[in-house]
């Protein structure tokens, strides 16, 4: 089943295009030689545009995170293409990929586990620069302090360890680190799900500001359709490893085409109605 994607119509070339991307895991049954394959996701097409947010929505186990990791070049897909401005990234060797990593960055769901607990905030933000061999130590520190300010963290807390920050601050720290190399594509893997409502809206505002000022392309993985309606320009719905519907956000919420989308929207509405009933 291939979904008609109407995202490209009347728009410029995408910054990042994913075509026919699949990932399979081969596993062996215990006490047996027989093997079986598990599809994490298959035949996925996506297009990310500068300055726009594509939300990837689906239930747990739908393959969203695996897909995000492949697009972020953290895992190897089994088949398909990932193109950055027309350049096929999967055809590149390891060496040639190193600078590309700077252009595509991923922010993880749990910022605590995504940071080395023994490093200070300043070191954590500057690490991508160290890895890419950019600037002198003083320049890197200056950049780290600037980034802290940009994401709304006090630069004076550069010496603090991750555990000394609150959950929301930690996510800001992770975003600052993600921005260090000046990426053009940012991938968020459920970054809002561990935060309270206030921090969710603060982070969303920060992300929107950053997107506007840097013209960033976002791929935002989420399971929360209601939250997605607040920030996504386009929505791709994922079910059992496949994209079942890909639409402009408004159109998708107004007239969902696929039955899965309708079901998902119905559950959101029924939760709303339950809450309404209760408050009444």
């Amino acid at each position, binding site marked *: 089943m291939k979904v008609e994607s109407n995202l490209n119509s009347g728009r410029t070339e995408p910054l990042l295009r994913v075509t026919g991307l699949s990932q399979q895991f081969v596993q062996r049954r215990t006490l047996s030689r027989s093997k079986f394959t598990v599809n994490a996701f298959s035949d996925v097409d996506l297009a990310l545009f500068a300055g726009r947010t594509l939300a990837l929505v689906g239930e747990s186990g739908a393959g969203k995170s695996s897909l995000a*990791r492949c697009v972020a070049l953290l895992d190897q897909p089994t088949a398909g293409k990932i193109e950055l401005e027309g350049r096929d990234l999967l055809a590149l060797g390891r060496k040639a990929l190193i*600078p590309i990593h700077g252009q595509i960055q*991923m922010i*993880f769901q749990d910022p605590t586990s*995504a940071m080395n607990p023994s490093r200070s905030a300043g070191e954590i933000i500057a690490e*991508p620069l160290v890895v890419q061999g950019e600037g002198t130590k003083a320049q890197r520190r200056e950049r780290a302090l600037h980034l802290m300010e940009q994401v709304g963290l006090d630069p004076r807390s550069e010496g603090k360890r991750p555990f000394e920050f609150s959950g929301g601050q930690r996510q800001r720290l992770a975003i600052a680190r993600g921005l260090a190399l000046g990426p053009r594509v940012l991938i968020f893997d459920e970054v809002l799900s561990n935060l309270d409502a206030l921090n969710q809206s603060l982070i969303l505002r920060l992300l929107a500001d950053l997107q506007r000022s840097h013209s960033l392309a976002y791929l935002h993985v989420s399971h929360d359709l209601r939250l997605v309606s607040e920030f996504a320009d386009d929505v791709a719905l994922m079910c059992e490893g496949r994209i079942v519907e890909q639409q402009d956000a408004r159109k998708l919420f107004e007239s969902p085409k696929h039955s899965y989308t309708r079901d998902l929207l119905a559950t959101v509405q029924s939760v709303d109605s339950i809450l309404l009933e209760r408050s009444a």
Partner: protein
Amino acid sequence: MTHRQKLVGALVLLAAFQFLILFAGFFAPYGFAAQDREQPFAAPTTVHFWDTQGHFHLRPFIVDSESSEARVYPVRFFVSGTPYKIAGIIPAQVHLFGVEQPGRIFLMGSDAYGRDQFSRFLFGGQSSMLAGLIAALLSVSIGILVGGIAGYYGGWVDELLMRGGELFLALPWLYLLFAVRAALPLHISQWEVFLLLVSVMGLIGWARPARLIRGVVLSAKQRNFVVAARGFGASDAYLLRRHVLPQTYGVLLTQMTLLIPQYVLAEVTLTFLGLGVGEPLPSWGTQLASLQQFYVLSSYWWMFLPALLLIPLFLVFYAAADALQEIHKTVAL
């Protein structure tokens, strides 16, 4: 008592003991080879503070009752005696304590040649502890290399290295050591014997730390901050050096602390069997080797003293290892 306090306590005790051993020349009243053929297997000397009339003396004294008339020798401090070298370089001859000639003070008795057991215990500690330390370092170094590579790269590399490790675990190493010794010329220098002993002990013991480190690396490389660093374009060498291997240090330190006493004991056992450092060089193994004779075993209980003294020493090592492990556990959480 917190784990940190326990660790500090254990480390202070260990440091104090190492200090005694390191400056054995000063703390021992005699040289390790100094003999008194007149007094073989002398029982431990009693140090007195009260005389026969019941008077207390601030300066302790010993009584030599072996000769025809009992003579009293006061224990003197900072006395000049057998020359020695501090840390093997600076010559000195001041000893912490001693008694005037011809008196002899044997705190732990004397051996068959009338050599002071206490002095030999301190000097012997130098070679035994060094053997334990070098062998443990060697084991852990190979362990981190093999375990790190196996855990990080996985796949057939992991399979190959771990099967190799199992082979080493399955080796009847005592007989291997016999075979290695037999393959070498009959007379080799003490240094060569020492090196052989240490390297064989170290080479045989790497499999266990390697397996532990492999386990830590396996989980460490999956952690999000390692994945994130890979996402910045970090190389394997960078990831291992900066993020993965530092997570193994807790296990490594614990392993080191556990292995040192094990290897010290291995040195003692191997020397007992005649495979270790030989006379007149002192080591705890050579000292205890005299227990091979039944008459020594049955008549001179003080010849066991070096073995008894190892028990508290090892217990302190194990306490340190335990505290390290607990601290590491809480840090990891």
